[in-house]
């Protein structure tokens, strides 16, 4: 049940209708059932994994509260939660990858390993809800919040369907209080929700899916047959595909949640206008980058130790951040490149800070975008060989094949209007600026979005990229 399917909107309409007629507790129970139906529509068997995480973390958090004076037992309880959640994630997401990598390594060392091909199916959204529920037990362990006393409310926090399968990764301290207190949908929430849903669908169905046509074609060609221009068209198109795809999903999740009276965090802030890697990560997948900062980078020591320790912490955080995206060496390299870039930029901070003014900022934004695009090449490539093959295409001359001309046209026609709009949002420094302009201007904007959805959605729809994570 994808956000870009009619099935989802029919489901949501029913949920919304039922929701209006219920009291607070009834709303929560109904949302929990709806969330399980939503998740079960992919594969009901994987509901058991969510239930295990829910039961273990609810129980662990309650026990953490009961054992307030026994630090040893508290550490043991936290370890149990970490082992359960990361164990599930490890088995379903990484075991096959590690077995395969071990087989390759042993083969290269001259052994003849006969390791089985596990063929484990990856449950949708497992990385998202695992991190979400982990943040809860860690926060309770750190005494930053009290444990939830209602198991069904906690179950709803883990499985809340708008952001269950692809985020934003909500903190318990933000979402649980909203679950536990009665909600009234404010008119402003309806207005902002409408904007989020329309713009989110536009970004997914019009921007991302049209970019996917170009990207999939170019990335399916033998790398030796691609010119430098072909490769660059593919990479730039992918940069906007993944942005449209993931930001689109996050916006729809925000919009749907707002119509239910919830406030879900912003996950993106015009990331391609960032002027440095640090700024990029403050604007891209904010819920993951802040999670990694709070639960990995800072516990490792953050920037409190020596320079070398800081770089080590950055490298570990970004490597694991890369691996979070998928069990593939391409994601590990992607994370390593980002970690190295963050370290290098940190080392040069004194120099770059001296360079000010609008021209300097424009150059910083341009350079940052180019480096981000280089890293996307690893992110999109099927394997490391293809990634380096694509780099090799830079030496294949600058012939502009007809397909690349078409690709350039598609990228410009679909992306330029979005960029113009986001420049305006950036200058207003307000993600919901459109909800504060006169109603007739907003109506014109929405009309354009809806018309684009009707006429310019891609001929073939694609799944959301982040579902596979």
């Amino acid at each position, binding site marked *: 049940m994808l956000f870009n399917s009619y099935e989802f909107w029919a489901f949501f309409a029913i949920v919304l209708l039922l929701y209006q007629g219920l009291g607070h507790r009834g709303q929560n129970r109904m949302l929990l059932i709806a969330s399980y139906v939503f998740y079960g529509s992919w594969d009901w068997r994987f509901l058991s994994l969510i239930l295990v995480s829910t039961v273990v973390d609810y129980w662990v958090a309650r026990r953490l509260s009961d054992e307030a004076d026994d630090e040893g037992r508290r550490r043991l309880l936290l370890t149990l939660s970490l082992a359960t959640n990361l164990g599930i994630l490890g088995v379903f997401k990484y075991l096959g990858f590690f077995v395969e990598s071990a087989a390759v390594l042993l083969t290269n060392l001259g052994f003849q390993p006969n390791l089985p091909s596990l063929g484990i199916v990856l449950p949708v959204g497992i990385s998202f809800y695992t991190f979400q529920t982990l943040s809860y037990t860690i926060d309770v362990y750190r005494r930053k919040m009290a444990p939830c006393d209602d198991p069904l409310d906690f179950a709803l926090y883990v499985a809340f369907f708008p952001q269950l399968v692809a985020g934003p990764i909500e903190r318990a301290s933000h979402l649980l209080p909203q679950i536990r207190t009665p909600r009234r949908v404010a008119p402003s929430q309806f207005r902002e929700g409408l904007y989020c849903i329309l713009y989110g669908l536009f970004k997914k169905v019009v921007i991302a899916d049209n970019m996917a046509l170009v990207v999939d074609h170019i990335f399916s060609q033998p790398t030796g047959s691609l010119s430098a221009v072909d490769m660059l068209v593919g990479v730039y198109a992918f940069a906007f595909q993944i942005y449209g795809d993931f930001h689109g999903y996050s916006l729809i999740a925000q919009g749907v949640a707002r119509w239910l009276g919830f406030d879900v965090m912003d996950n993106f802030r015009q990331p391609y206008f960032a002027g440095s890697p640090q700024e990029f990560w403050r604007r891209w997948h904010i819920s993951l980058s802040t999670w990694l900062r709070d639960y990995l980078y800072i516990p490792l020591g953050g920037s409190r130790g020596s320079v070398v320790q800081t770089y080590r912490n950055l490298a570990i955080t970004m490597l694991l951040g890369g691996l979070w995206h998928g069990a593939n060496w391409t994601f590990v390299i992607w994370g390593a490149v980002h970690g190295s870039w963050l370290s290098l930029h940190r080392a040069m901070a004194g120099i770059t800070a001296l360079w000010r003014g609008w021209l300097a900022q424009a150059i910083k934004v341009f350079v940052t975008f180019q480096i981000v695009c280089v890293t996307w090449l690893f992110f999109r490539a099927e394997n490391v060989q293809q990634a380096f093959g694509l780099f090799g295409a830079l030496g294949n001359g600058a012939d502009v094949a007809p397909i690349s001309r078409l690709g350039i046209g598609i990228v410009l026609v679909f992306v330029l209007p979005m960029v113009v709009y986001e420049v305006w949002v950036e200058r207003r420094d307000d993600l919901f600026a459109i909800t504060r302009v006169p*109603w007739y201007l907003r*109506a014109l904007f929405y009309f354009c979005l809806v*018309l684009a959805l009707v006429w310019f959605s891609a001929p073939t729809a694609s799944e959301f990229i982040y579902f596979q994570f």
Partner: protein
Amino acid sequence: MSRLREVVGVETRTILVVVLGLLFVEVAVRLAGERLSGDVVHIEKIGEIAGDLAQAEGFRILFVGNSLIGDGLDSERLESILAESLRIPVRVAKIRPDGTSPLEWYYLIDRHVFDPGARPDVLVIAFGPGHLFDRSGNQAVLRLAAHHVAWDQVGEVFAEDLEGFDAGAQFVLARVSRAYALRDRVQPRVLDQVIPGYQDLAPLILRDRPTGAEVDAGQEQRGTRLLERILGRAQREGVPVLFVAMPSGPGWVVDPGVERLIREHSLGLLDLNEELPLPPERFPDGQHLDDVGRRIFTDSLASSIAPLLSRMPE
């Protein structure tokens, strides 16, 4: 309810303007629909074409296919060659909506040929690579809803041919809104204005992508259920069916399973792709025949089809 009105009320004017804008577009598309595409003009005339053929004197041949036969067959030339060869008047008509396959053919034959009793003496189905396999992508659903399905066929479409909630929703939307149904005709025309060569090049990047139905099925579909339905319906109506494999360049052979099915349940298969190897220059866009190719194909078809028709019972 008053609470709901209060919440939604903040955007009433905005939503109303968007809805009015969409209604305006709907009216504009309905008024200008025929100008959007020559194919739509042809589709609107299918009933007339089938009716005229049924009224005609002599031997009546109805070709059903897509743009391959639309561009590839010179009907008048075929009529005159066959009339001379068979020594009776011959009328040839083509029903050839672009990009169609057995799904659309089944319903349009049923609606315009069998249901009104406009039976030809022979029904010829012309096909290219992969055309006879079951296909039911988004485009086919929109076209079924907008053009090919009569109201009394809607139940059958839902029962037999629309898989999943989304296909049903798309069908209903396309049935209600012309602007929605014609999206696959509006999009390339508009994009061709702003992206030079879009209409020629876009099929190249779309060609390898699976349709929505194929994605759902997890693999390319190779079924022939729809073809069997067409053959069964024609058999019940007593209309003989002949198949013509269109010249489509090297590298394609008719699927053995399809060939077996055709030979068991029809007059036969004229494999002009195999018998008439045409050079690549006869296919300027890689698929459709040029003028010279059309003449060669029509002549070849006439000489292949004449002996078959002469053996048919009166």
